[in-house]
């Protein structure tokens, strides 16, 4: 296996991905990711010098529209999906001390 994922890397990925992994899961994730990266490294066989990265297959342009509200006030229904709600608002854990 060419790629080796370090403890630091998997820790960092956990922070980026906002996922909490226990030790066994970390080991499994390291192995998984290394084998995926080995597989993806196949792309290195291709010479892509001078090739423009293609994020979209068509020549798309930004779509502009006037900033006009078209949907109604659906606050009650929207809030009803929230796991935490208080006085018609989303309830979140304390964000700073």
């Amino acid at each position, binding site marked *: 296996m060419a790629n080796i994922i370090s403890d630091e890397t998997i820790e960092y990925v*956990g922070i*980026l991905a906002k*996922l909490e992994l226990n030790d066994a899961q970390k080991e499994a994730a390291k192995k998984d990711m290394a084998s*995926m990266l080995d597989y993806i490294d196949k792309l290195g066989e291709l010479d892509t010098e001078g090739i*423009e990265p293609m994020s979209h297959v068509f020549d*798309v342009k930004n*779509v502009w529209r006037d900033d006009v509200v078209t949907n109604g006030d659906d606050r009650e229904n929207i809030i009803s999906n*929230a796991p935490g709600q208080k006085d018609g608002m989303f309830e979140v854990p304390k964000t700073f001390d």
Partner: protein
Amino acid sequence: MSILDLTALELSAAIKEKKYTVTDAVKAVLDRIKECEEDFNCYVTVDEEGALSKALSVQKGIDDGTLTGPLAGVPVAVKDNMCTEGLLTTCSSKILYNFVPTFSSEAVLALEKAGAVIIGKTNMDEFAMGSTTETSFFGPTKNPRNPEHVPGGSSGGSASAVAANECFFALGSDTGGSIRQPASYCGVVGMKPTYGRVSRYGLIAYGSSLDQIGPLCKDVADCAAVMEAICTYDPKDSTSVSRDDNDFTSALKDDVQGLKIGIPRDYFKEGLDDEVREAVLKAVDVLKSKGAIVEEFDLSLVDYAIPTYYTIAAAEASSNLERFDGIKYGYRTEEYNGLHNMYKKTRSEGFGDEVKRRIMLGSFVLSSGYYDAYYLKALKVKALIKKAFDEAFSKYDVIVGPVAPTTAPLLGKSLSDPIAMYLSDIYTISVNLAGLPGMSVPCGTGKEGLPIGIQFIADCFKEKNIIRAAYAYECASGNYHKSVTCGKDGE
């Protein structure tokens, strides 16, 4: 012949002729679901009450002449990653186990406008990440053609529901083959339209540059009719394209005289099962005998499609799935210590293994220091793949090959080796990378009674070439939809 054996177009015609009412159709499907669901598990949610009440209003519309289209009164199943107002939409994930959208996706609205009746929401791989429908939080769907096997994925519930007559047609979504591969495994017709043809508004995003909604149907004519209904320009989706060539049913002509078909040699190499190769080449011979000009060619870059896809799709998924944080909707962990711990615990408990695997890979390939080497490299290879197709379509009207290397695998055999599972998408994935339309049509049956599909691919916006070839093949082969036995009638 039971009402359930009719195609969508036959049913709507029969309703207009007053042979059946819309309520008859809805009740027949609901009874069928009750009979079969224990065997197949196609649905996450069945909206019995909503469908029965809708049947009455649609019937009224047909009777008073306001609903005249070919889908009026036809029961449809919708993949559970498309928002449906007031109806549970889970993406087959624990993290959305209780999410009730306040709006409907544009494709669903288009079907409702056409008078189709939403029966329920179909099972899928969690967030459409998988090729077998086994990563669903709500348990796997079984393949109705042989319930020891998977239906494919990720639109496995939609494909199974069509195959088992638990609906008259269904919507699925296709990011790397997720309509075509389950259609092939379940023996139904499935189409992925050109990127931009169908609005993605209200489709819960996985890989936004690849995702496209499309139909799964009993035959090619139904598929063309559903395409006409769902292909609309939508300003709410900035990648939606405005086209004036959505008259897909005009391509239902039993005529392939002079149609230029390219057969990519790379699609028939090692790794392809003999029975699949044989069935697909036999189907090609049928088209040849009807006057199509068939030629082999080298497509190139086929082996690079899967690593390119997983890099791009994982990157987009890691970004798209950031919104699931336990604040606005869905699952929230019970005990936590502060905001960040709540995010982390909620996501770790709410997402399944395959979803976490792709989020982590995506976070990694986008992270500073690796972005150029992985993500940007994949976007460059994507450009090369697109170019290879451009060259092929300068010579051919349609590219024809297999949909998947094998027939449907046994349940429980795929998830332990993700890369092997990803390989089942080798013939479908590059179509998404290049934004092309593709269709799977049944072309035979292999061992264990498992269906085999043939894939038709055309250049962007040339769906009509596909429909023409697929319809001509269907007419010649006589491979028409037959359902399966289940529940009581299986005894």
